[in-house]
């Protein structure tokens, strides 16, 4: 983890309101793991006051160029400023931060993405492919235009779901997961789940996993101030259990966590 100054290599709108920004980072920026995030200062001004956390969509090392990519939606002031940053602009970021996905050997990773939550899972799928590990990628979104990155998903089995049925299965990616689980005869000893998406979806998936004793890691989101475990502003509420008396900090004990112990109903 380091504070580094980076410059915008490119920043473009890939679909309505969704941007892909590529930032050149210096050598001192450590090689990130899928699921890790960067804490980005979107501009130089006092306002917006805080950095914004973003999962990495990818990391490139090509000759002298070392770059990270972030796939983001414009939802408020910070992301609005970020969307306006043009090629060549200097921004600074702290990263890579947090704990990423930790696939276990000899299990089939089932990646379940909801909407823009696809970003860290794309990163993960590329790593799996580099290591020639087969995987399953289930991707649900509102409509086909929101299915960012599908063409990049190679080396794995891909199933799509859209709410409007414009492509793939018409319905929730949760249905895809249920079908995949029974259809492919996965068991908690042969497969595990990695997921990212809206909290409602993650909640449902973690219920699914807990009921069946499946290992399930989810990438969480929530407001952050410091991003490095100092301020204790990003507590993750846990379900009753051995650890439930404390609040792990999402930024250092996450953002990827065992989904089955998170108390989703109390997460902002």
């Amino acid at each position, binding site marked *: 983890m380091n504070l580094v100054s980076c410059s915008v290599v490119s920043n473009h709108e890939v679909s309505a309101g969704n941007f892909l920004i590529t930032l050149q980072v210096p050598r001192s920026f450590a090689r990130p793991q899928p699921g890790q995030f960067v804490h980005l200062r979107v501009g130089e001004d006092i306002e917006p006051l805080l950095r914004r956390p973003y999962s990495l969509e990818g990391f490139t090392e090509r000759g002298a160029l070392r770059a990270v990519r972030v796939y983001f939606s414009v939802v408020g002031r910070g992301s609005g400023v970020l969307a306006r940053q043009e090629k060549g602009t200097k921004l600074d970021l702290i990263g890579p931060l947090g704990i990423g996905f930790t696939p276990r050997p000899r299990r089939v990773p089932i990646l379940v993405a909801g909407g823009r939550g696809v970003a860290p899972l794309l990163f993960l799928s590329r790593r799996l492919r580099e290591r020639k590990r087969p995987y399953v990628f289930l991707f649900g979104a509102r409509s086909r235009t929101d299915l960012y990155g599908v063409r990049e998903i190679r080396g794995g089995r891909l199933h799509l779901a859209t709410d409007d049925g414009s492509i793939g299965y018409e319905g929730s990616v949760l249905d895809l997961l249920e079908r995949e689980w029974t259809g492919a005869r996965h068991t908690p000893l042969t497969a595990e789940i990695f997921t990212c998406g809206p909290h409602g979806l993650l909640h449902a998936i973690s219920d699914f996993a807990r009921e069946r004793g499946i290992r399930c890691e989810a990438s969480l989101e929530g407001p952050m*101030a410091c991003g490095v475990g100092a301020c204790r502003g990003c507590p993750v509420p846990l379900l009753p259990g051995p650890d439930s008396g404390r609040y792990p900090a999402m930024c250092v004990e996450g953002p990827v966590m065992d989904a089955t112990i998170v108390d989703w109903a109390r997460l902002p």
Partner: protein
Amino acid sequence: MKPSLEVRIAGLTLRNPVLVASGIIGYGREYERLVDLERIGGIVTKTVTLHARAGNPPPRICETPSGMLNSIGIENPGLQGFLEQKVPILRELPCAAIVSVEGEDVGEFCELVRGVDGSGAAHAIEVNISCPNVGPHGLRYSTDAGMAREVMNAIRPLTRLPLIAKLTPNVTRIAEIAQACEDCGADAVSLVNTFIGMAVDARARRPILGTVLGGLSGPAIKPLALAKLWETVQAVDIPVVGMGGIARPIDAVEFLLTGATAVEVGTAMFANPALPEDCVGAIEQAVAALPSAHVEDLIGALEVPEGRGVIRAGKAARREAGRHAS
């Protein structure tokens, strides 16, 4: 030659007047790769309570216009955990380590002060009688001069470490509380802690913070913090440590001019971890521009036009008066 920026707060000599505020960088380690602690005066630790605290339910933070609300609820490992896990870190720090403590009653304050004093790792103790996030206790001590007196009287005999009483701004007359602390042996006061605030999610029709109320910090409160500082420096003779909304390096100079002997940098560090170092730079520049090149001549040097004459604030005024008298 660079001017010396050394300032003294009772027995505590600081390399320069820039500290990091409590609750911002934990106990130093969390930020070790982001801040060069050798360049700043010191840090104030996250407040330590007698018993470990898990803190408040989420959400605990919320951004507001030029500010943020927090309701952390003093999540900390408790005195025992502090002594075991954090004291070794503090010993290694290349700057002053000021330990912040808060008790739920006078007895707890005493135990905490004894414990921290005994650890040998603290250069000073910041007595947090001002946190708005721990129910009625903190607020009771913070808003009542009598209670502040009780705490200070009880802990003063227990340590020779400098005691800095940290005050809440959520009171009608902060100077009264500051004077009470001074009377009862505080070596300094620091201010401000956060202002009580609230945020609402109109669409969800719910308060945003899990605790409804939280504490407001950041640039939004800088004008309020300066006013509380100004009120306080005119009322007490002990050094005053100023904070609240410092976000640009020059802001630190504003606090010194208004009468602060040192400043604490808080919220804005989350965006810019280099801010404390940058503040040192700005102070250095301001001091170098003084005829005397003495940092003390910056402190309280605000020129306040009144009628035709010009008065100087707080200690600077008294120093000046002393000079004229002698």
